[in-house]
């Protein structure tokens, strides 16, 4: 029983990262109907910026992290304005090609600058592991869970309890309607790209101290983001969070109780199983046709 709880705990903290990535993908997807296949690399880029700012610029960690999130926010605005707007009239597949290519450019850029080295990310708060009953709680688990929990609270509060959230939901439901009531939909798309990449960067910053930092960091997280979205229901914000947490726990349990090699393919197995058994996912919404 102890081992089960221990696995669940670490699964949840891993899952919190997946949830954040799935949520950031969903924010962009819901706003623009674009699936950002390069998202993993933007996650990686966020973590790399922190590394650069801490090691080379010698900024305190917290400032470096905030700066990196802001840089990625700006990058999101730039990507939307510079690379998505110009191809908006084109076929939808263009968005997929564009996002994959931008991702590889970032990955290639990171390889070019740092080679294939793996960097240890500096630890943020060195907290001694402590016990709750027989459960070991490490500083990382505590740190990640706390940050993600606070972030999610703020996110969902804004989304469901503020006028800004109401307007965001409105644009999600009808761009024509949003324009009618005076919303600048183009600027909205740009800011959602900014928010999406900033959230992705936050995920990268939180995971890098555990997973180590390398140019290919993003790829493994992209597929987990997709798996979380599929499990929770593609396009559902709450579903992305629940899906991420469940995926994190499932990876730990499958890896321990069945076979450790299963851990890495849990995400793929979940995608396949969900699509076959319940394509809409746990909180799937019926697809509304935009007129």
């Amino acid at each position: 029983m102890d081992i089960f709880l221990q696995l669940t705990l670490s699964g949840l903290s891993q899952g919190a990262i997946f949830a954040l990535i799935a949520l950031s993908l969903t924010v962009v997807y819901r706003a623009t109907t674009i699936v950002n296949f390069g998202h993993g690399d933007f996650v990686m880029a966020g973590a790399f910026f922190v590394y650069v700012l801490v090691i080379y610029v010698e900024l305190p960690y917290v400032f470096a992290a905030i700066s990196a999130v802001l840089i990625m926010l700006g990058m999101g605005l730039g990507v939307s304005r510079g690379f998505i707007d110009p191809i908006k009239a084109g076929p939808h597949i263009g968005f997929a090609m564009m996002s994959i290519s931008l991702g590889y450019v970032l990955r290639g850029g990171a390889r070019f600058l740092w080679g294939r080295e793996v960097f240890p990310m500096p630890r943020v708060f060195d907290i001694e592991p402590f016990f709750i009953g027989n459960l070991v709680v490490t500083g990382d688990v505590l740190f990640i869970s706390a940050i993600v929990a606070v972030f999610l609270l703020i996110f969902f509060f804004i989304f469901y309890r503020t006028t800004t959230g109401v307007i965001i939901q409105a644009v999600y439901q009808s761009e024509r309607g949003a324009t009618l009531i005076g919303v600048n939909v183009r600027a909205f798309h740009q800011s959602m790209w900014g928010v999406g990449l900033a959230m992705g960067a936050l995920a990268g910053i939180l995971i890098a101290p555990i997973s180590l930092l390398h140019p290919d960091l993003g790829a493994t997280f992209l597929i987990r983001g997709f798996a979380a979205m599929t499990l929770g229901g593609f396009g559902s914000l709450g579903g992305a969070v629940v899906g991420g947490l469940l995926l994190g726990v499932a990876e730990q349990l499958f890896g321990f109780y069945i076979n450790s090699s299963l851990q890495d393919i849990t995400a793929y197995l979940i995608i396949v199983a969900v699509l076959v058994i319940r394509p809409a996912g746990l909180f799937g919404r019926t697809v509304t046709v935009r007129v």
Partner: protein
Amino acid sequence: MEPLLKVQGLSVNFSGLKALSDVTFDSFAGEVRAVIGPNGAGKTTLFNAISGYVPSTAGQIFFKGEPLHGLAPHDISVKGVRRTFQTGGLFPEMSALENVLAGLHVQIESGFFGIVLGLAEAREAEREGILRAKRLLDLMDLGAAAEQPVKDLSGGQQRMVEIVRTLATEPPLLLLDEPVVGLSPPMRDRMMDIIRRLAGEEGIGIMLIEHVIDLVMSGSDTIVVLSSGELIAEGTPEEVRQNREVLEAYLGHA
């Protein structure tokens, strides 16, 4: 009286096709102005051009003396020229009341920080908005349906919700694209009644596209007749009724 809207020499071409050519008229506050004409006459194109959804090829549009041509649709909406579409303008998952409030939120400039910080004016504006929205929904017999997602309402009810959403922001100029289509005759009369009252009592300038000729004749102050993209007549219902060109456009060559 200073016109609310001045349209001067407006032309819209779609790849060589003249959808509107050299249309000129003024529209005034407190006036119900109907735009009529056979299918393909350019009525919706005229609305699209005024509200910024299609670029004009030539000509100018002024609202309260400020140029509108070249502005994006959302900017024109914020300036107070509000329109409705025949379909697709609502937020389907939201209730009627939420739809109306979403429209108001964009108007409440204190916006996000105002609400989060609990600023008094923002709260006050929110409260007033809710009251106004409820009053308008009641007026349209939508009080009972106010809490339902609008996708579950009938087509006619949806249309009214959209019009209420537009009205709730108290715009100086309203462009209504076939506001009564799909409504039952009693609701149609009620809608026309409300439109007339808004113009008469609140001094809102209203332009509407309508096909039902009796409604146009009884409900509007001025009629603009378009045919093949050209303005062929403008005047009171009585003047337009006796206009020879109008008869020809509608009945074929007399």
